[in-house]
């Protein structure tokens, strides 16, 4: 069980009677449905640079978002505090979306529902920690990066955390709450040699506290990895240009799935038929080796949630099974309009934003091949193991993702490192080009940020080693 009660009831004295009054105001002009999203969020960030702690920051955000749905229309307003009059005013503003002549929507008195599971059980929340321990993580990172190689000239390490209380109350009678922790540590290095400069970056985190930073996410490990990448780039050659066979390493290269497949399967784009995937359910979009899932239920993962931002439990949703497209990622509005089951993917950045279908942790299941055999099977190609960001044009289906660490493969051997380059492909067809899937699924280290329509949220991706027959590599070397 998470917390037997919500901070909004306990500390802020919000009563069920208040909630009923707000919802009643929200439906006063005849909306079909209304909900309230209470949020109290505390953020910390600390930055180390030039070997000193340059800044420490704390943020406090508190507010309530009021949403009213009438048919396909959404009215939204929010209050920046918990003042009763301000919330009622927001409810009246959001209510304006509905046609005043219609009868008021039905309202069921909200009943508090306890969460049955907790994907991030921790003894203490990030907001309760002192900053001394957090500073120590940064100093360890700085020491380890500088010790890695004398050519590392700059290290910027940052620590951020979030402690987010939410309470969601719906006009169909549910009141649910959650307490969501999130931590992240980033290390950026600049290497300099003979007037040439290169950067390296590594980060990690998850929904937990400081014990997240162990193993691969230990500050020393993150810093060494960041430094290694910066040093490696000093000898990188120009990336090739043109279509070629590409092997993607495990973990973060799963950003391929996020861009090529995931966004295109968000229900809103399909309901509106603006996605290149619209109408492809049941059709073969990938090779039989490909099974892709979105799973918001993995303990302590960055993209996991006990419930989504509409109060519905998160799920494990199979998007593609053995190459065949199975379904979409739904929020409440699209699931109603499309008469499809909820998948627990209604998410929002904060109380001042409208929820929409979003991904959680998106990855491909392992296959049978040994990763080393996959590399050996390539005569001439690219092996890409670390990526920066990616982006997709939902409508044309074209997507990009940018390799920040990649190597040439020549006669089955990994050879020279190449400079960063963007890879571009076609979402609905790229998985047909997958000719081998490794047995080494990894999830990324917990740094993903996904942007959609101006809202950013934490997500994760994952991938086993895979081979793609042909994809266009955007280097400069013809």
């Amino acid at each position, binding site marked *: 069980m998470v917390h037997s009660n919500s901070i909004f009831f306990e500390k802020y004295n919000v009563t069920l009677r208040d909630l009923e009054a707000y919802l009643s105001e929200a439906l006063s002009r005849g909306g079909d449905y209304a909900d309230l999203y209470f949020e109290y969020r505390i953020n910390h960030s600390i930055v180390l640079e030039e070997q000193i702690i*340059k800044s420490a920051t*704390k943020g406090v955000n508190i507010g309530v978002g009021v949403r009213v749905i009438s048919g396909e229309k959404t*009215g939204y307003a929010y209050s920046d505090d918990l003042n009763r009059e301000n919330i009622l005013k927001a409810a009246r503003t959001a209510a304006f979306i509905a046609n005043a002549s219609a009868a008021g929507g039905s309202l069921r008195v909200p009943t508090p529902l306890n969460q049955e599971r907790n994907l991030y059980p921790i003894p203490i929340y990030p907001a309760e920690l002192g900053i*001394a321990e957090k500073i120590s993580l940064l100093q360890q990172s700085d020491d380890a990066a500088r010790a890695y190689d004398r050519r590392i000239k700059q290290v910027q390490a940052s620590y951020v955390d979030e402690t987010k209380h939410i309470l969601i109350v719906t006009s169909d009678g549910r009141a649910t709450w959650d307490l969501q922790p999130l931590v992240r540590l980033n290390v950026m290095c*600049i290497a300099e040699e003979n007037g040439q400069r290169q950067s390296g970056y590594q980060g990690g985190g998850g929904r937990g506290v400081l014990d997240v930073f162990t193993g691969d996410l230990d500050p020393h490990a993150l810093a060494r990895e960041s430094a290694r990448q910066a040093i490696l780039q000093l000898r990188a050659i120009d990336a090739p240009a043109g279509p070629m066979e590409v092997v993607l390493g495990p973990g973060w290269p799963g950003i391929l799935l996020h861009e090529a497949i995931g966004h295109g399967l968000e229900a809103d784009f399909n309901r509106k038929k603006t996605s290149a995937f619209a109408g492809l359910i049941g059709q073969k979009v990938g090779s039989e080796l490909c099974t892709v899932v979105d799973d918001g239920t993995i303990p302590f993962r960055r993209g996991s949630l006990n419930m989504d931002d509409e109060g519905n439990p998160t799920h494990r949703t199979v998007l593609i099974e053995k190459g065949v497209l199975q379904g979409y990622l739904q929020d409440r509005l699209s699931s109603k309009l499309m008469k499809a089951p909820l998948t627990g993917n209604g998410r929002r950045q904060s109380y*001042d934003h*409208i929820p929409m279908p979003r991904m959680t942790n998106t990855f491909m299941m392992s296959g049978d091949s040994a990763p080393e055999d996959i590399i050996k099977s390539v005569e001439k190609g690219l092996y890409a193991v670390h990526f920066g960001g990616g982006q997709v044009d939902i409508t044309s289906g*074209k*997507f990009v993702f940018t390799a920040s660490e990649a190597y040439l493969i020549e006669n089955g051997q990994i050879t020279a490192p190449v400079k960063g*380059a963007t890879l571009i492909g076609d979402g609905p067809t790229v998985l047909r080009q997958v000719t081998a899937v490794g047995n080494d699924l990894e999830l990324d280290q917990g740094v993903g940020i996904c942007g959609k329509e101006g809202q950013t949220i934490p997500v994760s991706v994952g991938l086993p080693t895979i081979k793609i027959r042909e994809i266009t590599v955007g280097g400069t070397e013809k």
Partner: protein
Amino acid sequence: MIQSLQDIAQHVVDRVKNSGATAADVMIREDDTFSVTVRMAEIETLKEAISRNLMLRVFIGKRTATSHTSDISGAVVDRLVDETVEMARLTSEDESGGLPEPGFFQGHFPDLNLFDPSWERLTPDERISLAVRTEKAAFETDKAVTNSEGASFEYARSRVALANTIGFGGEYAGTSAAVVCVPIAESKGSMQRDYWMSAGRHQRQIETPEEIGRKAADRAIRRLGARKIPTCQVPIVFDPLCARSLLGHIFEAVAGSAIYRRSSFLVDRIGETVASPYVTVVDDARMPGGLGSSPFDDEGTQTQTTPIIEGGVLLNYLQSAYTARKLQSRPTGNGSRAASGVVTIGPTNFYLKAGLYGADEIIRSVKGGLYVVELIGFGVNTVTGDYSRGAVGMWIENGEFKYPVQEVTIAGNLNEMLKNIEMVGNDVTFVGSIAAPTLKIGKMVISGA
């Protein structure tokens, strides 16, 4: 009783003085926003709210900490002041830390024409109709426009107030609005989306809904039937909205914070030729009615017009009080506070000045090349200048558009790209604080089939 934001900021500053801090500043930003999205002639979302953010920065000698809160009630702010002072004790001494020197503040503020009261006279229905008309115009342009991601109208009335412990206090207000249209065109079972937008502080700065809708539709329609082309090295023409992204990369590379970190391809290059002679870039905070204009920056420093590149020669970096001290330079009024309250470097009106040519003349000058209308992805490394992004465009042959192109990348290095700018258009287009005209770059590598 209605308090001005400046009074609230001053009150918090007074409170900090009694808490053990040696210096502090407080900024409060308030945005009264209205936004509507219309899709298929119906309202899809309607959103209205007033949001506030109070950002506090305290110094204890050379140590600093920052905080922010959306709740500006007395009890919350009081507690946050104490916590921020506590955090500052645990950060390191930083020789360059502190408020700007008193000489960089200004007593009276110029009227930069940032506020258009006529927006307030529009009723909600009139505001909604701006979006309705825009989308309607897109659909009426051609029957190939079959679907839409919607048209939106967004409006904000904002106030910014700042006060510090060395006597500075100031407040200004502004309005800003944008109309955006995202139509989808369809032909032979394949879809293309594009957009057009217009933004400004004043109603008269914004194109009519009909113009915006028609341009957006034309842009989507001309992409129908787009194909991949073979890998090649050719001249590239950037339309103003794509050229704007290049200016964004230049901005990142001249920000004082990137310079002292040595994480810029333009480090140590003041006085050098970094671009072709046709390139002149300024950061002009004093442009009347500019989206990025302000009388003082987010530290209270007087704003100015800063030449960045003149005739291809790099003249200045952009500085906050902190980066100026680090780099033994002067603040340029580019201190910018993120929502978290941390001061970084921000652009004001950062743009590449208009050149001699119409966009059509530039296109006519190309024998074989690509006119780029959209760029996607993040493949730009401002430390090295390496550049590789996904592109959509129109293939130009003998000075005319031949067919649309997609699923290709364009790649090069910003150092070379800036030096290879051969023609500069006369069509600088502001939709935000960074802007550019049409630009022609002599050659880049297109990676395709």
